[in-house]
């Protein structure tokens, strides 16, 4: 079943006794879906493709941006603004032309997820948000698919295999969405590309073991890895919160409202009250237009109106802390989103509620 060229390509892998030709054929027959072609998905895909997973599906609605490149290793400058799933597959075809690749340049929803995952044996969660993670978990429970979970925060990672041979699921670990205070993602908290690289490869390794039937699958355990001290800790997971699936399993459908957080990525982590911070530690940026009162001309404030932000953003420090303000806090939040999403800033806060007389006095005090 493997062609001469394929036998040559996989030669070193086939040499490994527990794999051999039979194992390689198992890999060729298998179908794996990677959700999210980002920091975790890129390395996972690169190695799963090289290992010879016969059918690889990639879901990602997002476009490549410059701030992705330091960790999303399938992409380069020429790919910016192109869809990640489509570009990933173009690249992977060059790495291993012997596979079937399917790109899904869409966002997974309660409407489309079941149909998409139905065709796969194993689902790998490489997403970066809770909405997707709970949706994928529940869809896997409903269709009885194993799910490989990997997730990172700064220098720490969580890895596990869920719903494998009737084992525990994501909701056995975390029942539901966390509180808004407990949330952050790579865009807001920063990440060194190596960690998602390591975690994506742990996820790929689980895929291979599951298909080949070798080693021990990381089911019933949560592995926590710390890249700063190389500490690995395992926690035992058992099935719990089973009743959470009662409605899902009896009605056999996903209810959209369950996958929307009441206040999705809360502004809490971006908005600050000036009383809670030390203004001296911040570069302070006024994003109001020049005609707005009160005029604030000060050595410690730079004026970059929102309308000129995309031309003048380079005056804003990428290091240290930056506080943006406007009249009410809405435009400064908008400016924050532009700086974060288009220019890769991770050090920006927005002044909650906008500028007040009290704060102006405080600034004058600092200036003098």
């Amino acid at each position, binding site marked *: 079943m493997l062609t001469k060229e394929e036998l040559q390509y996989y030669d070193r892998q086939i040499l490994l006794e527990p794999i051999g030709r039979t194992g390689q054929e198992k890999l060729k027959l298998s179908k794996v879906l990677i959700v999210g072609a980002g920091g975790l998905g890129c390395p996972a895909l690169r190695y799963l493709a090289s290992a010879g997973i016969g059918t690889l599906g990639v879901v990602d609605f997002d476009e490549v941006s410059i701030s992705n490149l330091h960790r999303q290793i399938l992409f380069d400058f020429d790919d910016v603004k192109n869809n990640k799933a489509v570009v990933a597959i173009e690249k992977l075809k060059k790495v291993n032309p012997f596979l079937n690749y399917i790109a899904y340049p869409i966002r997974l929803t309660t409407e489309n997820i079941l149909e998409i995952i139905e065709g796969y044996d194993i689902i790998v969660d490489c997403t970066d948000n809770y909405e997707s993670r709970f949706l994928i978990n529940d869809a896997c429970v409903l269709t009885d698919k194993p799910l490989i979970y990997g*997730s990172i925060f700064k220098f720490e990672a969580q890895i596990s295999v869920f719903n494998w041979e009737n084992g525990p699921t994501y909701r056995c670990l*975390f029942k539901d969405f966390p509180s808004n205070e*407990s*949330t952050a993602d*790579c865009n807001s908290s920063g990440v060194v590309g190596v960690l998602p690289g390591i975690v994506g490869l742990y996820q790929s390794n689980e895929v291979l073991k599951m298909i080949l039937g070798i080693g021990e699958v990381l089911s019933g355990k949560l592995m926590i890895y710390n890249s700063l001290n190389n500490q690995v800790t395992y926690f035992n997971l058992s099935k719990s919160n089973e009743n959470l699936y009662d409605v899902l399993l009896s009605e056999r459908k996903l209810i959209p409202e369950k996958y929307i957080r009441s206040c999705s990525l809360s502004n809490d982590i971006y908005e600050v009250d000036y009383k809670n911070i030390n203004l001296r530690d911040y570069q302070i940026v006024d994003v109001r237009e020049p005609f707005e009162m009160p005029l604030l001309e000060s050595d410690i404030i730079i004026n970059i109106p929102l309308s000129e932000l995309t031309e003048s953003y380079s005056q804003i420090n990428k290091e240290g802390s930056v506080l943006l303000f406007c009249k009410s806090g809405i435009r400064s939040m908008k400016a924050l989103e532009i700086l974060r999403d288009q220019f890769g800033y991770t050090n920006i806060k927005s002044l909650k509620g906008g500028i007040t007389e009290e704060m102006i006095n405080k600034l004058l005090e600092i200036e003098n």
Partner: protein
Amino acid sequence: MEYEVQFYGMIAERIGISKASIVIDFNGEDINVRNLIISRYPELKSMTFQIAINNELKEILSSVNIGQTIAILPPFAGG
């Protein structure tokens, strides 16, 4: 009895430490670790976390639990 408490992810960041040692007096009763942790670290009150005692997910500590590590595990979703 003395326990080592390990804090992970955003929880460690919020309270500024990744480890602490706490002494628990049982007085013959089981201890609700979540309540205990929140009373020591009130800033964790509105945060979501799981608790593991000796690497098993559970929240009630009884004096027969030998081993003595408590881990505070927040969810995180980055990728």
